[in-house]
């Protein structure tokens, strides 16, 4: 639930940040863009921190019960993707303070590209974590 809410918030914010300013006001992208992107920042920070904490707890069980099964089955690619998830999630966690500052306390002389790039990196990490987590969780059921 936390992960899905986080996905929604970061995806909306990222697309709104990338959307062109000349979108027609009544159009889908116009309405999409009219939602103040900065208002998502607090939610993203809280949800990211919470989902990392919950993921860190679940990871204990993954390491003992799931990972040995994946190793025995030779799902090395899945383990590689999952390791990347760990690394990316940690780097993303440390980016949250800067991300928050750029959205909630922007300076006039700071380029918007930095804010967009930070948001895009976080969006990539969140989507990667979500998809990789689900693949690792379900791979044994895929019959591969």
């Amino acid at each position, binding site marked *: 639930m936390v992960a899905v809410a986080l996905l929604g918030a970061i995806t909306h914010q990222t697309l709104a940040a990338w959307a062109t300013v000349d979108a027609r006001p009544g159009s889908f992208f116009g309405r999409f863009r009219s939602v103040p992107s900065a208002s998502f920042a607090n939610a993203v920070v809280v949800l990211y921190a919470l989902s990392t904490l919950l993921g860190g707890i679940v990871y204990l069980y993954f390491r003992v019960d799931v990972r040995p099964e994946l190793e025995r089955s030779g799902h090395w690619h899945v383990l*590689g993707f999952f390791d*990347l998830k760990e*690394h990316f999630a*940690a780097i993303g966690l440390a980016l949250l303070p800067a991300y928050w500052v750029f959205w909630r306390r922007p300076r006039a002389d700071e380029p918007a590209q930095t804010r967009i790039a930070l948001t895009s*990196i976080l969006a990539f990490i969140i989507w990667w974590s979500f998809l990789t987590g689900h693949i690792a969780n379900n791979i044994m059921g895929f019959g591969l």
Partner: protein
Amino acid sequence: MTSFDWVRRFSFVFGATFAVLYVIALAKDLALFTVFPSLGVVLAGTHHSRDVADPAMSFLAPAIYWYGWTATAALGALVIGLVAASLPGRSTRHLWSGWVWVIPALAMIACVYLTMPWFWL
């Protein structure tokens, strides 16, 4: 200089430094502590399963290093971030703000490189 400039400098330096230190911790296997969840044991420093159990039985004591790598990088980044935050504002004014995303992006690429052995198995 407002008190928020302090927070701003800290957050920028913390994010970028953490990414660099995390890659170093990962590459050099520098975990601040190692967790053995099946044994309920936490040991300071990096310990491989073969160090705490017979190599043939090491699968019984899987080790978690991720918490330790993260703690190593967080501790280092915290110290460096606090030092940077305490510097006068003019000393960091000319730094390009884009480093705050370029460095983590490069660190992520380095993580991919370090994870490549999984994909060669």
